[in-house]
């Protein structure tokens, strides 16, 4: 049972390059989330989705785009990477009930030079 899988695990980019982070879940969850984790700041929500074909902005959406074309996948895109986007990115999924916990992937460590 894979749960939430993120690819890639590590990536180094140059400023201005673009890339897409992939999140896949096999639990048939409706809700999916993208967070970034920075030292001393906890997790901050970038974008989320409450179902296939839907997306919404979180706390820190600028510089990122997302797509949810299939229920099991949630993609996070950086169109023009900046050093401030150096972070660890986590994807999570959850059933469509607020009293249920989120299930997290193991993260993507992204460095922008």
């Amino acid at each position: 049972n894979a749960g939430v899988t993120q690819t890639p695990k590590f990536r180094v980019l140059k400023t201005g390059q673009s890339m897409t982070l992939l999140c896949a879940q096999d639990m048939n969850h409706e809700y999916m989330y993208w967070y970034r984790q920075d030292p001393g700041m906890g997790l901050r929500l970038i974008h989320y989705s409450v179902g296939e074909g839907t997306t919404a902005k979180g706390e820190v959406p600028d510089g990122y785009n997302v797509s949810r074309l299939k229920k099991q996948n949630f993609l996070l895109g950086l169109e023009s990477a900046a050093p401030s986007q150096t972070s660890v990115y986590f994807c999570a999924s959850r059933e469509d009930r607020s009293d249920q916990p989120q299930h997290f992937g193991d993260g993507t460590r992204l460095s922008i030079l």
Partner: protein
Amino acid sequence: AQSVAQPEDQVNVAEGNPLTVKCTYSVSGNPYLFWYVQYPNRGLQFLLKYITGDNLVKGSYGFEAEFNKSQTSFHLKKPSALVSDSALYFCAVEPGANNLFFGTGTRLTVIP
């Protein structure tokens, strides 16, 4: 503004001693409360939650948490710490409308 506070960045405790990791929140209404644990190079793992009912909730790996509505706190506890409990712990609060607020995390170190 809605927020979650974990006042201690670091908690050190001797193996076998009880541990407490503190969490307070400022959120309107009756939120759902969660604790997660993060081991190195891993994602967050769910430990326990408070939805309603008994103020003391039990979770995974012998952890429990005490909800105090008047103090708006949700402290994580364990009667006897293990070295393997050393990790980063996050408190999270969901007031509804698909908003989950995380604290900044507390690093627990259990000393053998």
